[in-house]
Structure formats: C-alpha cells, structure tokens
C-alpha cells in the first residue's frame, strides 16, 4: 500500500473478490426467491398426419397442428434476476418398441426488455391484435402453427397412439444458475390420428 500503483493494484484485486461475492449473493438470492408458476393451459387443434412424397427422397410422415396457450408469466418476468425467458412447446411420445421421443414444435424468446402481454394469432380471417400493455407477461396464443417440422427418425408415426404436449420455460439470468420448468400443459395425452390417405 506504499505507492500509487501498489494501492491501485491491491484495491482492484480486493474489489474483484468483492464483486464476485456480490454476484454470488445476487445469484443465490434470486434462486431462493424464484416464484412458482401457475401452470396454464395448452389446447391442441387440427392435428393432422400427412405423408410427404418427394421425387428422389424417402416417403415420410409429417404431422402439423395448431395450438392455443393461456398462461401468466408475470411472476417469472418480474423476478429479480431474469434476463430472458425461452418458451418452447414440446411433444413427448413413446413407441411400442420402447423408444422415447421428445420434440420441440414451437419456440419464442421473451426478453425482460420487451416484456409485455404477447399474443400471436395466425388464423387467416383474424387481424393481428395490437401489442399488449407494457410491463406485463400474459401469454395468449391462438391458433398458432407449429414452427418446426414434426417428423420421425424412422419416417413413420405407425404405432404412436398418443402424445403429451407441454409448454416449458427456460429462465436465463443476468448472472448465476439457469433454471427451467413447465409453463402450461395440455389436459391429458392427445390422440395421434391415422395418416391421411390421398
């Protein structure tokens, strides 16, 4: 501590230690106070399995669907250490052979900066509603199409009777540990229909 450089050096290394302690406190306290989510509702509509036929490619089944979601993410978005939420809708299903599949059908990034009620409506004859009030995170999705193609590695949905649909969230903090959970679920397993013959 005798000279300028020595003091600068010493205090900087002290401050580095203390800022890490501060970040640790922030991370731990935000994990302890992480709010629980009231699990919302997912409705699956128009689930169709078709067969893709393309020249030069193997025939394969392709499932498409539309879905509604109603859930309230305000507690999570207003939480202390939330930088962004990553929302994703998954279909989970098993085959008689014992294979277990887990597929993301749709996702969306909600950052704290642009947090607001958000709605997405993709029905043709319905106008896009205005953006919701700022500072709130009510999720209202209506008639949203799946974003990623839903296929099977084997090429066929044969033997798959039902699937469970869940909207998950993945919470990205400003600093610290990531956490994730369920934001909304469909009521019970949904039947997978037969392939449409054309």
């Amino acid at each position, binding site marked *: 501590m005798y000279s300028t450089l020595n003091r600068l050096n010493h205090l900087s290394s002290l401050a580095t230690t203390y800022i890490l302690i501060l970040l640790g406190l922030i991370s731990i306290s935000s994990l302890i106070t992480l709010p629980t989510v009231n699990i919302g509702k997912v409705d699956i509509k128009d689930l169709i399995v078709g067969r893709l036929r393309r020249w030069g490619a193997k025939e394969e089944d392709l499932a498409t669907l539309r879905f509604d979601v109603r859930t309230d993410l305000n507690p999570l978005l207003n939480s202390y250490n939330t930088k962004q939420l990553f929302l994703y809708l998954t279909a989970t299903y098993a085959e008689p052979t014992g294979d277990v599949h887990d*597929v993301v059908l749709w996702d969306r*990034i909600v950052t704290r900066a642009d947090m607001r009620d958000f709605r997405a409506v993709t029905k043709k004859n319905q106008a896009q509603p205005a953006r919701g009030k700022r500072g709130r995170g009510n999720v209202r999705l209506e008639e949203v199409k799946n974003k990623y193609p839903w296929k099977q590695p084997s090429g066929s949905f044969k033997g798959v009777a039902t699937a469970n649909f869940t909207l998950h969230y993945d919470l990205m903090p400003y600093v610290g540990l990531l956490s994730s959970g369920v934001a909304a679920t469909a009521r019970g397993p949904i039947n997978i229909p037969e392939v449409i013959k054309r």
Partner: protein
Amino acid sequence: MFQSEIARFRKLGVQGLLFQALNFLSVIASGLMMWKALCLVTNSESPIVVVLSGSMEPAFYRGDILFLWNPANVPYAVGDITVYRVPGSEIPIVHRVIESHITNTTQLLLTKGDNNNETDTMLYNGMEWLERKHIIGKVRGFLPYVGYVTIAMNDFPKLKYALLGAVGFFLLIQKEHEHA
C-alpha cells in the same frame, strides 16, 4: 535504457533465477490442478467455456462465460443448452437441444441456436444426428462479459503483446521497490 534492470538480473544469480522459475512453475501447476479437479467434479472435458458466436443471442453474447456440467447416466433433455464438438471440427458450439430420440442403444439429438433460423444439421459434418459422445456438457451457470478478454486477445494479437509487455514491465517495477 534498461541498464539498471539488467544489472539487477545479474545480482539475482543462477540460484535466484531458478527460484523464480520454480515459483512460476508452481503457480502454473496449481492452476492446472484446479482445472483438472473441476473436470472431474463436473465430468466434463472443458467445464468452463467462453461464448465465441452470437448464435444464442440474446441469451448469450460473445465473451460471456458458461459453466458446464455433464452428469453421467442422465440423458440430455429437450431445451437443455449443450456444448458439443463434432469430429472433424475444432471449435465447440453452444446450442439448444430441440429434438431427442431415445432408443434402446443410443440417444439421437438435434440442436439449434436460438438466434439461427436453421437447425444444426449442416454443422454436423455429414452426420444426421448428434449423439451423447459428442457433447461436452450442458450449461448450468452464466457469468456475463468476463471472457471478453480472451476474445479481444484473439481478435487483436497486438493487444496480447501489449498486455504481456505491461505485465513484464510491472514485474520489473515491483522488484525494484522490494530492493529499494
């Protein structure tokens, strides 16, 4: 110009120089030991990584530090952010799992960057799916910006030499005060 410094090195003698070298090596060895211990605890070959690309924005930006965990015997789930390295490419990639197909023998995974429009099939060097053996770990903890120093040193090599020069200079000054 550097006469006084050179003279001081002479004064240290062979024994003094060797002692300095030993000190230096023990610092490196203890660092390596801590790294390897962390590897053992997290079961990951590289438990701390720096984000190099913007493909996971706005979750991770260039220069953020990620802490990885690779729990043995626990399959990776959809939604996990994984770090993987495919054979034939050097750089590990941080992307999210969007498909998982567990069969009797293996787990097939498909990943995608949150900020990318396409899935990662193009990055797999001809493979159709990712498997567990390619994955280094999943992201558990996050520390923003701190890793930017390493990126800056890679992007601007001159900065690296400037930094090394500054460290050397300060070491010399430090020693002079001890003698004074």
